[in-house]
């Protein structure tokens, strides 16, 4: 077994701040693991511990089957791409890319051929004799990548390598990096604060918050079954709508009441969530993804809510409709959020996620007008339910 393994790794800074709190992570050989989370959650710290730039205060780190916890960076056989690229300003592109090989004592001729190979893979052969300051941001990014791949290390570490690029280039490089990684099959730990990046690039994604992994899984798993409200609202764009509702049993069927609206959970879905029956008569937090709304005209239809559109945005292929429905439910949500204070830091996120403005993603040919009422059906099989007390998903 090779790859990168973190076992209950922690980092307590000298000032007593615990930035990483017992993280365990297993990046398989050839796997692309994205580490994502809000700012300050400890992503960079984790990566730096793997690189050896920061000491772990507890736990074990293994790379390619070696315990590297106590090794200096140079003995860990990792390559890292920095957010700032960290190019050596006084060396040419060639010198930058070949530096690691030179340090490894590789013969000059071999260095030259490896550098040329890396440069041609990245399509920058003609840039080899320039200095970093003579390159554009995107080109610098490539040099940083070249410096990493040329070493053929046991692991790649990347800390938001795309965040200094413009939006278009970023999307382009996303694809390039994943393709490159597939090709050379080196286990990669990729840090980003952008969930889209994590979801599109990662074989698996670890969601970090306050130094703890909230959930680890494939992008599909994270999207389909978020473990808690934090993950639910973090994954997906626009974010999942979270709102307070009530779980009721009507005629032996589980029904979720949100304000005036009633959503009947299909029996098969209810059966799959064994905990759900225990919530009968209790508050639950309801999560509805914007893409799970369906515009309907029929006022008699079930599983639907009446909304007043406050704003609509057309992106061409799709239409985002903003509304402030659930006025009644919103009041409850505020109350519930207050009651959640004892859940600790979860409450900040709740306030952000139980926001009053909700959004639905509709087809572009839906006819909605700002200020008008409109009836939206909710796909009852795609409703997410959370325990408002623990913020965990009801399973």
């Amino acid at each position, binding site marked *: 077994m090779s790859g990168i393994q973190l076992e*209950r790794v*922690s980092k307590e800074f000298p000032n007593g701040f*615990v930035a990483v709190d*017992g993280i365990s992570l297993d990046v398989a050989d050839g796997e692309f693991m994205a580490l994502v989370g809000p700012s300050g959650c400890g992503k960079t710290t984790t990566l730096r511990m793997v690189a*050896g730039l920061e*000491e772990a*205060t*507890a736990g074990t780190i293994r790379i390619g089957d070696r315990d590297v*916890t106590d090794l*200096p960076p140079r003995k860990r056989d990792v390559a890292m791409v920095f957010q700032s690229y960290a190019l050596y300003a006084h060396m040419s592109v060639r010198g930058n890319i070949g530096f690691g090989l030179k340090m490894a004592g590789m013969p000059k001729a071999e260095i030259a051929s490896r550098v040329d190979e890396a440069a041609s893979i990245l399509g920058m052969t003609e840039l080899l004799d320039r200095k970093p300051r003579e390159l554009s941001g995107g080109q610098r990014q490539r040099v940083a990548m070249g410096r990493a791949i040329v070493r053929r290390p046991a692991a790649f570490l990347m800390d938001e390598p795309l965040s200094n690029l413009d939006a278009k280039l970023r999307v382009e490089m996303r694809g390039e990096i994943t393709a490159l990684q597939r090709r050379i099959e080196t286990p990669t730990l990729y840090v980003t604060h952008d969930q889209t990046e994590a979801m599109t690039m990662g074989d698996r994604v670890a969601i970090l918050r306050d130094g703890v992994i909230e959930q680890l899984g494939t992008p599909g798993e994270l999207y389909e079954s978020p473990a808690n409200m934090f993950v639910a609202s973090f994954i997906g764009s626009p974010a999942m709508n979270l709102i307070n509702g009530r779980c009721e049993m009507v005629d032996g069927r589980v029904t979720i009441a949100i304000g005036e609206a009633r959503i009947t959970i299909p029996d098969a879905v209810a059966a799959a969530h064994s905990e759900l029956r225990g919530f009968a008569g209790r508050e639950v937090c309801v999560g509805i993804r914007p893409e799970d709304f369906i515009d309907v005209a029929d006022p008699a239809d079930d599983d639907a809510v009446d909304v007043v559109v406050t704003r609509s945005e057309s992106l061409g292929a799709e239409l985002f409709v903003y509304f402030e429905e659930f006025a009644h439910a919103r009041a409850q949500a505020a109350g519930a959020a207050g009651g959640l204070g004892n859940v600790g830091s979860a409450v900040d996120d709740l306030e952000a996620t139980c926001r009053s403005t909700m959004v639905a993603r509709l087809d572009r040919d839906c006819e909605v007008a700002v200020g008008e009422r409109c009836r939206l059906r909710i796909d009852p099989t795609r409703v997410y339910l959370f325990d408002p007390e623990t913020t965990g998903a009801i399973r």
Partner: protein
Amino acid sequence: MTTGSTSGTWGSARRLLGFDLTGSAREGANLGRLLVLPAIAFTAVLIIYPLIVGINTSLHENVPTINAPADFVGLENYTNALKQPSVGSSAVQTVWYVLLALAIEIPAGLAIAALLHRNFRGRGLVMAVLILPWALPSVVSGVLWRRVFDPDSGLLNSALVQLGVIGEPHVWLADKGWATLFIVCVHVWGMLPLVALVFIAGMQAIPDDVYAASAVDGATPWKQFRHITLPLLLPSLVVALVVGTVNAINIFDEIYVLNGTALNTRSILMEVYNQTFIAGQFAQGLALAILVGLVTGALAIGYAMLLRRRTV
């Protein structure tokens, strides 16, 4: 968030207790020790040790030959030094130097910074010219200005006589007031670039948005200066005050060139020089030097506290 870890391996425990740095940290620590060692050794031998010797000497009886044994006399040298009338007059004179120098350097430095902190064509050249006077030896500054004030062949006298402002050549440097002013003028010539640089750096650190925003809010240029530039410039102001004060307290070269060690313009450092090296009163001179040092240090700390008070 809870502290610590549940990991129980030996290695982790040792690391947690700080016994065992990882390879990289240990390497860094070793390199660090090696690199600062020369500085530490140097400081100890050439600054701290002489300082201790100096303090010790100042507490002992003055002896004519340096190696002769001397009796411990406590603070006697200090009280004796302070009793000298020339000490009092040179201290007062130094206070004047400091006040006058600051009175010119701070407003003029601000004005220069206001003039130069934004880019314009030829700014680089102007900045290069600006720092020139600071780069020159202060002795030479004195020499360059000396002919201006010379009583016989002075340019100032000549100009004023020609213009009919004064009837006959004036011996400027014999007149305490004028002499003080001229010495300060020469001193400021050399120091102003540094003060201006401090203010320019301070002004450049203020983001342009702040000005744009306040302009949108309807602030006049004066109000902008008063309510935005000045408060944000406070740290620079303190630095400029420290730089200006310390340098003015230590004024020596310009006076020496312009007016020798004449009593009417003698600074406190010159008095130390006179007592120690001209009069051979080592112990007393040291006592005086240490007093000057204490005052300088206290002033620097005072300024720093001023900064803290205002920014909290």
